C-alpha cells in the first residue's frame, strides 16, 4: 500500500496569542498531527501576503495564519489589518484556482490550546484528500 500522503503545513502564529495558545496545547499535552511547522511572528499584522505565496511556492500543502482575536491584539490593532490583507490574498488564491482548503486563518488566544489543536487536526484532515499542492510549488 502506498504511504498515506502527509501534508506539509506552515503556520504563521503571532507571538502573543496564537503562539502562546499553541504552547499551551503543548503544556497541556494535547496531541495533534505533526504536519505543522510553526513560524512565530510578532503580530499577525506583520504577515505579508508574500510570506503566504512564498510558502506555497516552496511547496507547502497548506498555510495557516493565526492571530489574536479582534480586540485582543497585543499591538492594539495589528490583527485588524491582517484580517483585511489576508481576506484579499485568500480571495485571490481562490480565484486563481487554488483549493480553498489550503489556506486558512484563525483567531487563537493564549488560552485556546484546544482550539489550536482542533484547527490543526481539521486542517490536516481536509488536506489529506487533496494530495500534494503542486499548483504554486516551485518547479525549477
Amino acid at each position, binding site marked *: 500500500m502506498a504511504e498515506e500522503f502527509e501534508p506539509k503545513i506552515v503556520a504563521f502564529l503571532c507571538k502573543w496569542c496564537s503562539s502562546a495558545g499553541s504552547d499551551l496545547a503543548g503544556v497541556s499535552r494535547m496531541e495533534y498531527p*505533526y504536519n505543522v511547522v510553526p513560524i512565530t511572528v510578532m503580530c499577525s499584522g506583520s504577515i505579508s501576503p508574500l510570506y503566504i505565496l512564498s510558502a506555497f511556492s*516552496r511547496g507547502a500543502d497548506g498555510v495557516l495564519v493565526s492571530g489574536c482575536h479582534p480586540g485582543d491584539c*497585543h499591538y492594539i490593532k495589528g490583527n485588524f489589518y491582517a484580517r483585511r490583507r489576508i481576506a484579499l490574498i485568500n480571495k485571490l488564491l481562490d480565484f486563481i484556482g487554488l483549493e480553498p482548503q489550503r489556506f486558512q486563518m484563525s483567531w487563537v488566544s493564549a488560552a485556546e490550546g484546544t482550539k489550536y489543536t482542533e484547527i490543526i487536526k481539521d486542517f490536516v484532515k481536509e488536506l489529506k484528500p487533496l494530495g500534494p499542492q503542486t499548483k504554486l510549488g516551485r518547479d525549477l
Partner: protein
Amino acid sequence: MKRTGVFICHCGINIAGTVDVKKVAKELSNHTGVVHSEEYIYMCSDPGQNLIIEAIKENQLDSVVVACCSPTLHETTFRNTVKSAGINPFQCEIANIREQCSWVHKDMEKATEKAIKLTKSAVERVHRNESLDPISIPVTRRALVVGGGIAGIQSALDLANSGYEVILVERSPSIGGHMIQLSETFPTLDCSQCILTPKMVEVSKHPKIKLLTYSEIQDISGYVGNFKVKILKKPTYVDPDKCTLCDECTKVCPVVVPNEFDLGLTGRRAVYMPFPQAIPATYTLDIKSCPGLLPIACGKCADVCEPEAIDYDMKPEIVEEEVGAIIVATGFDLYDKELMAEYGHGKYADVLDGLQFERLCSASGPTTGKILRPSDHKEPKEVVFIQCVGSRDPELHCAYCSKICCMYTAKHAMLYKHHVPDGQAYIFYIDIRSGGKGYEEFVQRAVEEDGALYLRGKVSKIFEDKGKIKVWGVDTLSGKDIEIDADMVVLATAMRPSEGAEELAKKLKIALDKDGFLSEAHPKLRPVESVTPGMFLAGAAQAPKDIPEAVAQASGAAAKAIAILSQERLFHAPTVAKVNVNLCTGCGMCVHVCPYDSLSLKDGKAEVNEVLCEGCGTCSATCLRAAIEVKNLTPLQVNEMIGASLGG
C-alpha cells in the same frame, strides 16, 4: 557565513522521550553555517549553560541556537548565557521543540523530523540576525494617575510618598469615586467615608500631588519614560481661591437637577458642591444645567456672591504635563438601567440599584440614614434583593461575574435589618461567591444573625401592584414558585467599565478586553501592567473588584510605576522597524498603520522613532516596496525560515 552553534536540550525525557535528540544534533551539524552541534540533558542547568559558553569559546561561535522549551521560558536565560560568553544576546535564538513538538506528538520519527525543521528554521533566522543593543531612553520622573477613586487615590499617595511627583486627574468636581458614596463597607462594616476622607485630604494637602479635578485627558503622546499629556481643565466658573464656601449661591440658583452623588434620589442646583467632604472643597457651576452664561440669562449666583468668586468668563484650560509613567484607574459604572427594563428599574420608584441603596443607608444620604421608600417615604418592611442583575448572563447582558455583588448584597441585607429590625430581607441568588478574608463569615452572619432569607433562583417578573412591588420567582432548591409582595427591590446590577473609558483607552493605546475593561499585559504574571509600556492599571477599570483588591492593585501599579521612575534611563527592545530609504517612496501607508505613532514622514521618506516602536511589523507587511522591516525578523529571515520549515 556565520559560525553557529546548535544546542539541543533533552529536558530530561520531556524532549528526549519523543525526539531523537542525537539525530537532531547530527542533522544540524551538516547544516550550512553550523560549526558545532551537541545535545545535553538540561541545557538550562548550570552545567548546560557552561557547555554553551565553552563551545562558544572553543569554536569561535558567533551565534547560537538552543533547541529546547518555549522562548517565553528560557530565551532570556540563554541570551544571558551567550552574553556572558561575549556574544551579543541577539545572536541567540530558541527553537521550541518541546511545547511545539515533543509534548504534542508521539511518533518519534516524525517528531524528530519536525524538531529538525524547527531547529533549522531557527538557524536560518540566527544566521541573519543583527547584533543589537537595547535602546536607552531618559526618564521623566513624574507620574500621571487618571481617576480619583480609591484606586487612583491610593496609587497617587503611594507614588507621592515615595517621593515622586504625581498629577492626579479626575473628571468629576471631586475625588472620592464610588467609594465615597458607600455607607459601610464589607466585611467590617466600617464607615466608608470615615476611612476614605482622610486619604482624600492627604491627597489635597500632599506637596507632591498636583490635583486636577473636573479635568479630562485630551491627548497623549510619547512613550514609556517620556509621555506628554494634554489635560483639559473644564471651567468650574467658580474661583476656588475666592470662594468662602458660604453656600449663598446654591440658595438662589433656580435650577434643580438630579444629584449624581445621590444617584438621582435627591436634587442639586446648577451651582453646587458635590458633597460636603468634597476635595477640593469648592463649588462648581454645571454649565449644562445653568440657564446660560452667554448671554447671561440668570446671574443670580454671581449677584449674591460677595467675594465675587463666580467668574462667567472662565475658559477651558489645557494643561500640558510630562510624565514617565501613567496609572489608569478609571473605575466603573453600574450597568445602565435602561438595559434592565425587565426589573422595572427606572420605571418603579421603589426599585433601586445597589448604589442608591447605599445612599439610603448612608447617614449623609437623602434620608440621613433612614431606610425609606423613595415613593412614599415609608419604611419598607419587606425588601427583595436580587443578585446577578446583568451579570453572568451571556445571552442578554454581561457574561462575567461582577464579583462584589454577593458581598454587598449580604451587607445590604444586614444594614437593612439593622435599620429596620422588623423587616425581612429576601435575596435571590444564583450562587454565593464569598471568597476573601472574612467574607464567608460575613455572609453567614447575614443569614444567621440578621435573618436574611436566601432564595436560590431567578426572578421571573417584577411589577407594581397596589403600592407593592410584586416579585415572582422560583426557588430552584425547593422547586416552588415564589411570590413576594415587596416594599422595595434592590438590584445588584453589573459593574461596567466607566463611561468614556473606551475613548480614553484609545488615546492611551491600551487594549480593551471583550467586555470593555482595560486589558492587562498578562492575566497572571503581569496583572497590573497594560500592553503599552509605562502604563499601568488599577482598580475596577481593569475588572470588577472590591475595595481591598482595588487598593492592592493600586499599590502594585504604583510600585510598577516606581520601578520605571526610579531609573535614570530605560532600555527598550532594539528589535524595531528600520527603513531602507533607497526603497521608500514616502507613500505614508506605514505611518497610517503604526499603532504607536512611531512612524512619520520626513523629507518624503518614512522615519522610525525607535523608542516608540514596539516591533510589531505591521508596517513591514503593509509596505508595498519592502522598504521597512523589523530588525531580526526581516522578510528575508521569514522567507528562509519558510524554506527550512518545509525541509528545503
